[in-house]
């Protein structure tokens, strides 16, 4: 096709315009960063004060008994035990007379180890917090400290040099990249391990005997978003779509009705991250309205109950329902297959990543250093245990036994060769 007369019309943008726009975008970034300054300041303060406090405690502990009373042990309960030796005036009846001299003897304190620091993505924070709170037993009384970070920042923290390392375990819904892994190696952390703790997965389905649908994320978004781009002018308008064929001409004439999790539930956040963001990217709408759903009854919040959902679907066979994968698996006989295009949800499609409404939960640590944090290996073991607690409403799916591998096997560079998409 002779189209030279068209291709020859292309021009490079003026260099000055290019530079000025870049400067403008960088200024926009700086403005956003200024808004986050108080938060960053707090983090910085924590980073400075944390090690300083730890060093102070360490020096205090190591001082001779004369200089420091033997009341300073690493954990709070021991401090309570040693309290009677305090020289401050205290009511006589509160001090057990016989036990006091024994308790004031210098005790061989175990070396103070900091609490395990776990970095998790904001999306998985709620779920991981619940899981970590339920981890038992612990040999020390130090609770793991959970920090919310984007994956890139978390891997940077895990892979920073030993002296400034801020994170012991990273929980992420994406894999570490080769570049991040090489950074770890450069900083002496060559024993990074990668394990899957499980998945978070949802299923959009319908009544068992309903007509099968094969929707895209874009279709679902355009059916459920409160505001959608106008077909003609591209501006945002209130969603006028009532039937699926209005959303996409290839879809059948069928009233749009979707039942899903309430806005305050963690499952709703998963729905937003996995499906609405996908549709919003493809639509695309203004990013700030990506999660705003219709309030005209087309989307209805429903409790995920094995009794209620089949009843709803029985009364309205056109309705679709969004449930977590475990609920879907447990009630498969009452439900149709997935209403989204692509493979059906199963252990295999979750594992190979082909099922679109799921995300893996990876756990990373440096086995050479995890032992230096209090309870580090125990917590790591618990996170990867087949008996990991499964709190409701997070859409968590335990990993299939066949997929489970040795959590202490260090990752190698060849494991991270990019796979073809």
């Amino acid at each position, binding site marked *: *096709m*002779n*189209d030279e*007369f*068209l*291709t*020859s*019309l*292309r*021009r*490079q*943008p*003026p260099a000055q*315009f*290019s530079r000025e*726009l*870049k400067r*403008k*975008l960088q200024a*926009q*970034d700086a403005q*956003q960063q200024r808004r986050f300054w108080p938060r960053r300041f707090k983090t910085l303060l924590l980073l400075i004060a944390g090690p300083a406090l730890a060093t102070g405690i360490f020096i205090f502990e190591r001082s001779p008994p004369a200089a420091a009373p033997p009341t300073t042990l690493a954990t709070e309960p021991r401090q309570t035990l040693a309290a009677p030796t305090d020289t401050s005036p205290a009511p006589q009846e509160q001090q057990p007379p016989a036990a006091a001299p024994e308790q004031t003897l210098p005790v061989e304190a175990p070396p103070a180890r900091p609490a395990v620091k776990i970095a998790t993505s904001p999306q998985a924070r709620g779920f991981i917090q619940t899981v970590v709170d339920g981890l038992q037993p612990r040999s020390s009384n130090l609770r793991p400290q959970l920090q919310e970070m984007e*994956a*890139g920042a978390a891997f940077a923290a895990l892979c920073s040099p030993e002296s400034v390392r801020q994170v012991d375990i990273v929980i992420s819904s*994406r894999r570490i*990249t080769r*570049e*991040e892994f090489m950074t770890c190696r450069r900083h002496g952390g060559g024993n990074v391990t990668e394990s899957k703790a499980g998945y978070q997965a949802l299923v959009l389905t319908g009544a068992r005997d309903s007509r099968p649908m094969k929707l895209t*994320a874009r279709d679902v978004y355009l059916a459920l978003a409160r505001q959608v*781009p106008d077909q*003609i*002018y*591209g*501006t945002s308008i209130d969603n006028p779509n009532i039937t699926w064929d209005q959303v996409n001409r290839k879809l059948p004439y069928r009233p749009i009705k979707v039942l899903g999790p309430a806005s305050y539930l963690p499952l709703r956040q998963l729905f937003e991250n996995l499906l609405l*963001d*996908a549709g*919003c*990217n*493809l*639509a*695309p709408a203004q*990013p*700030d309205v*990506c999660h705003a759903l219709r309030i005209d009854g087309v989307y209805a919040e429903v409790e995920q109950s094995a009794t209620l959902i089949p009843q709803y679907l029985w009364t309205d066979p056109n309705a679709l329902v969004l449930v977590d994968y475990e609920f879907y698996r447990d009630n498969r006989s009452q439900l149709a297959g997935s209403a989204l295009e692509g493979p059906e949800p199963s252990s295999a499609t979750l594992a190979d990543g082909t099922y679109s409404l799921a995300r893996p939960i990876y756990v990373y640590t440096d086995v050479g250093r995890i032992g230096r944090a209090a309870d580090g290996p125990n917590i790591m073991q618990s996170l990867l245990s087949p008996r990991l607690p499964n709190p409701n409403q997070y859409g968590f799916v335990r990993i299939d036994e066949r997929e489970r591998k040795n959590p202490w096997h260090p990752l190698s560079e060849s494991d991270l060769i990019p796979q073809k998409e």
Partner: protein
Amino acid sequence: MHGARPAEPTDKVDWDAVYADQLPRIYNYFRFRLGRAADVEDLTARTFEKAWSARSRYRRDLAGFSTWLFRIAQNVGTDHLRARRPHAPLDMAAGLAAELTPESQAARDSDLSRLGRLTARLPEREQDLIALKYGAALNNREIARLTGLSESNVGTLLYRLVQTLRSQW
């Protein structure tokens, strides 16, 4: 026809590279879409500002970056064209048309203006196809993703459009 394209941005996005790669595409998309140089810089800047402020929400596993960016550009362009659409009375429009034929105007104008005048007769969708293909240098698959047409349909439409434009050039 087009040079090698850098890889799509990964999870760890090199925004400098993305900017360098996408800026000429968006810029030329608007040049072809509007058929004139005026407003092109403004619309390009507006597209990048929108995308930049929302880029933390972009996820590679959900849509190609250029698809996402061009969706924004399409909306920005549509908003602009809608706001600028002239509302001249019909009889005045008829007079204007009689006064300046496309051929006489084209002889005086630059090639870009000539293209703008020729594509102005086409439906919106076809104008967009030309801008995406020859302005933004997207391939047929990417255009299909953006327009909702099939890849083969995009190829056929573009072939016919180029034939038509060339015959009038």
